[in-house]
């Protein structure tokens, strides 16, 4: 909370320290100016609010258009990274290969890892794949228990049917051996 400025009293003093009437007049005038400035701000603010909402809606439409244009539903496959707890693994990067070809190599910032640990899910790659069988290989690089460097792979053979497909690469904790576990799941 901002304090009321000493403006009224101080500025009255600056001009004529002993003139109380003038000070009161200045104080009243400062109050009126504040109100006018507030009204002006509100008017602009309401415009900005409305504009921001419209731009957000436009961005939604553009986002959907981009996705439909670049990744038509029939061939679309989205790959997501998620973390469950993440006590035993500090993620640095993820490398993804589809049918032997590297398609993504993502290096995570601390802020992004934190977002993952707290339940965020990162869409790491989008692809267009033909219907049929495909092989996904994901390599997770980071630090495991006791800050040891860790590099593990996980593989999934999946069948791409007609319609969008979501694949989730999940990092979970295996409590008993105190090791991370890397699981790949399919969502239709």
């Amino acid at each position, binding site marked *: *909370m*901002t*304090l*009321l*400025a*000493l403006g*009224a*009293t*101080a*500025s009255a*003093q*600056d*001009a004529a*320290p*002993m003139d*109380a009437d003038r000070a*009161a007049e200045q*104080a009243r005038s400062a*109050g009126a100016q504040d109100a006018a*400035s*507030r009204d002006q*701000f*509100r008017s*602009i*603010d309401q*415009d*900005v*609010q409305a*504009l*921001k909402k*419209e*731009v*957000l*809606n*436009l*961005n*939604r*439409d*553009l*986002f*959907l*258009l*981009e*996705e*439909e*244009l670049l990744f*038509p539903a029939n061939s679309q496959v989205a790959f*997501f990274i*998620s*973390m469950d*707890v*993440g006590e035993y693994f500090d993620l640095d990067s993820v490398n993804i290969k589809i049918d032997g070809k590297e398609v993504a190599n993502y290096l995570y910032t601390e802020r*992004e890892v934190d*977002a993952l*640990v*707290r*339940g*965020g*899910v990162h869409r790491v790659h989008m692809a267009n794949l033909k219907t049929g069988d495909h092989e996904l290989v994901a390599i997770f690089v980071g630090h495991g228990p006791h800050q040891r460097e860790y590099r593990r792979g996980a593989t999934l053979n999946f069948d791409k049917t007609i319609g969008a497909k*979501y694949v989730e690469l999940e990092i979970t904790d295996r409590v008993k051996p105190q090791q991370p576990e890397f699981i790949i799941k399919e969502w239709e």
Partner: protein
Amino acid sequence: MLPGRSILNRLSLLCLFAAPLVSAANSEREPIVVSEPQYGEVLYYFYQDDYFPAIVRLLAAQEQQQLIEHGEQAEVLLGGLFLSYGQHLEAAEIFERLLAGNADPDTRNRTWFFLAKIWYQRGYLEKSRSALANIEGDLPDNLQREALMLNAQILIDAGEYDAAIASLQNWKGRTEWASYAKFNVGVALVRSGRIDQAAELLNELGDMDPFNEELNALRDKANVALGYALLQDGQYYAAKAPLQRVRMEGPFSNKALLGVGWADAEMENYGRALVPWMELRGRDLLDSAVQESMLAIPYAMAKLDSISQAADHYLNAIEAFHEESNRLDRAIGRIESGEFFDAFVADYPLDSTGWYWELEKLPEGPEARYLFHVLASHEFQEGLKNYRDLNYLHRNLDEWQQNVDVYVYMLDTQQQAFEQRLPVVQDTLARTDVEGMVQHKLGLDATMDNIERSHDWLALATKSESDMWREVTEIADTPALGADIPEAAEVRDKTALIKGVLQWDLERDFNDRQWNVRRELQDVGEGLVQTQRSYRQIDEAVREETRRFAELGDRVYGLAPRVEGMKMRVEDSLSRQRAFLREIAIGELQAQKDRLDVYTIQARFALAAIYDISATAAEVPE
């Protein structure tokens, strides 16, 4: 992953009050159970304080009806995101709808509190007041104190001082908030001319034992406010005590020293007044108290008959004011040219960071030192946030504009490629007589039915067997074999034997062969079904692709002017917001310049009077 109800409930609370609770959530590191990846994706951006992409993704997922499991939470999250992004009107609409129902009291109260806070900061005082009135029961301690302070502040702004004082009467706990609130009431009372009541409150603050630096500063501020209020009220002697309680090195010491000097000067004790005023010499000329002391010192000297010294001091003051005024002109020029705002955007490319962000330091530049006070005003701070947001929107639309151009090109290329391939596909489809194949297969089925019905074992013979059967039959049917001679009889026996063996073999293998043929016919049937399906799919794909191109074309071509139009509106709003901020900033600098001008005139007038007195004195001996 299974949805976890309790975790989701906690999430919804956390989402509402993004920034203040994010740090707390950091330490707790509660995992959130997400059952739809699109919802998790929104959270991914939200947790990084990237509110804009988070909102866009959430709106897109809602539009595509991808948030079924998280439908309700998504709506609460959207409200929280809007609030965090400063979209308070949108946020309020959602919360008013959601919280009117069965939200738990804690969530409801917190929501109203944060709405009240943002509305107050944005100057929506009535909305802020009614939001506070919606709080039922107590908030958590830290928020309760802030809410009470906010309420007092709203009452002060409305001129309801007694109500403000009354609201602070029952303040519990040793906290800075109560002191701030009391100070604000005290200043408000001074403004309304109720000096005695103000003196009581401010004296209490000015005499307190502060337990931290923040309260030390507040104590100084209260003493300065009280001292000046008493000076203006003509209580010069009484004014000295609070002014002398101000720390010598604090940010308010200049004003206190000036005030103490004026109190002595008003009591005609000019020699004593010079002591604090001389202390101000050499301090930063930016401070109005230091500027005024440059006039006060020669004023006192003149009163003490040190005319020559007074003249020197007036000359120094005029020179110093001139230089300072020139510096102010340069700063005003930088703001008018827009350099200041460019530097601000360059220094704070924080993009979609939300409403909780506060500017603590202006970009380096000649104007920064003059705008210190402006930073404290809500209108300037909130105006800067709008300015930053509008800049982000402009960049965002700029990028989309380029992308839409690429999409137009991409769509055209895709359509061209499709149109080139289409005749080949259509030709192949036209040449493929799937119906004829089906009829042929049905004919084969009927033939097999006949063979099975008539147990026609010969029909399933291989070509060599058929050839052999025909050959043997031809031999057997040869007329010469009908002769009644031993050689003919021997051949007849042999052919009969061969035919018998052949028939035996064919009859023996009949079932296997029949099964094999039936299986092959079944495979053919399945192949034909698959072919028919593919045929239909291709046909549908051709129609779907044509429709898709038409639909995407409409959208892409429709969006391009929308982006362009929106960009122009953002530019318009940006210039309006910039003009508003420029007006505040230049108003502040101009006020400082006007004050210097007034001081300069006063100094010149006093100097002229001194010269006049000196000249008159010099003429006397003649």
